[in-house]
């Protein structure tokens, strides 16, 4: 019944007909959980973030104004906000779910596996390898010693024959650069 409607129409219709929101959820739920999973690498957090994002979208659907981003853009805007909060606080917000009276849900073992499939670790590994190769030799060497081998900065400095401050700076810059490469859309399947 609602399948032919676009996202904006579904949101507007859902003011009085919650079923329309259900269709919107079906349309974007799985891609959103994948979005969160690839960024958090944590299936449980991704599931909760998805639930909270949709709960917040549902609670504020009457305030939705189409600013040219469409319904999906609006939902992903809320998702980015949730993700930022998650990285800042280390936990998933649950206010919208509580406000709507939604129960807490456990993520089953089967769901864990399905969500992790969405992460596509193989692709993540390839992306990390690609990003790693884009670092300078010094940064790559410093990161390998510090992050992969788990050696102290003094040992890293001795191995690289530089001061400890320089070793710290190389590791820090390397991590930042790695993170920036990993933020590229190459991790987004289908994009």
């Amino acid at each position: 019944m609602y399948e032919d409607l676009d996202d904006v129409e579904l949101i507007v219709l859902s003011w009085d007909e919650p079923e329309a929101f259900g269709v919107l959820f079906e349309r974007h739920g799985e891609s959103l959980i994948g979005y969160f999973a690839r960024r958090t690498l944590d299936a449980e957090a991704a599931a909760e973030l998805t639930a909270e994002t949709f709960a917040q979208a549902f609670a504020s659907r009457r305030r939705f104004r189409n600013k040219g981003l469409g319904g999906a853009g609006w939902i992903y805007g809320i998702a980015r906000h949730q993700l930022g909060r998650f990285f800042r606080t280390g936990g998933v917000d649950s206010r919208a779910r509580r406000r709507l009276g939604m129960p807490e849900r456990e993520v089953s073992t089967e769901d864990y596996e399905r969500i992790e499939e969405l992460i596509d670790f193989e692709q993540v590994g390839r992306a990390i390898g690609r990003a790693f190769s884009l670092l300078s030799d010094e940064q790559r060497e410093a990161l390998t010693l510090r992050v992969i081998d788990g050696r102290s900065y003094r040992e890293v400095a001795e191995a690289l024959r530089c001061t400890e401050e320089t070793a710290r700076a190389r590791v820090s810059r390397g991590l930042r650069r790695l993170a920036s490469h990993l933020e590229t859309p190459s991790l987004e399947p289908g994009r």
Partner: protein
Amino acid sequence: MSSIAYLADVRGDLLDAGRREFRRRRGRRTVGLGDRFSTRSIVAVATVMTLFAAGTLGWFVTRNGTLEIRTSGEAGDDAARGNATLARPMPSPAPDAFEGFRFPEWSLPHASLDVTTQNQRGPADVAAGAILSELSRVIRTAELGLEIPPESFGDRFAQVIDVAANNDGFVATSTSRERSGNVTMRVPAGNFTQTLQDLRALGDVEVQTIQGRDVTAEYVDLRARLRIAKSRREVLLRLMDRATSIEQTIRVQNALDETQLRIEEFQGQLRFLDNRTSLATIQVHLREEGVEVAAEIDTPSIPTAFERSVAGFVGVIAAVVIGLGYVIPIALLAALAWFVWTRVRVRRRAV
């Protein structure tokens, strides 16, 4: 449908929440503001509306004189002792109407005090009362807005001037347009009340403002200073006779000049007060029925503009504060009524 059971559960929870909300709203039968606007917007709009309503109410209240209604009439000198503002419509003159706002010090030098002192106090007190009465100085001013019948402006304007003359007064300034005009007259303070009465008979009183500024203390103070300055002048004159050198003479002469200047200043101020208190000032605005009098435009100046802006600022704040005094109790009562009503409704449903 997704293969992830968690998502299916969440979808079901959302639909349940939607159904609950739908049932709640159907119970309410109306779409809540909270559904369309954020709480912050509602609070902001409600605050602005409340302040606006309070300001309007305060302005209305102060403008229409509900707080300022003080009437006038046959109250005689009492009217001249205080500020009295009367908004239309003016009722028939009411005796003793100024009883409510007599300032304490005004009752000191007047006849009522004389009577009580004669009954209860000795001759010395009576003498003191008589001196106070003699010294009593009140500057009386009044402003009267009269609406007169159509086509009668010429006659009434002439009658206003006659009223001034009949009460031993004179017209200080007058301006007249085709069907409206202003007259400023000075009349002896003793004829103030009678003059106002005569003027009120010429038309319907729209606005009447009577002010009485008691300058007795200022007057007494000036007289004392004058007396001291005169004594000082006597002393200096005697010193002048004794001066033996040019330097001494110059010093005493300078002091004498300064004292003489002060004496003349005091005398000038006393003369001014005498004039202002012996002659009352009455401004009369005549307007034929149906004629709108254009607001007089003063010559614009920065100080005037600044004063007006300050007065406007204070006026708006005052109006809002006054209005809040009305709005808050009404809002509290309304909130209480709403609270009781919702409780009753809930109980009825529960039965």
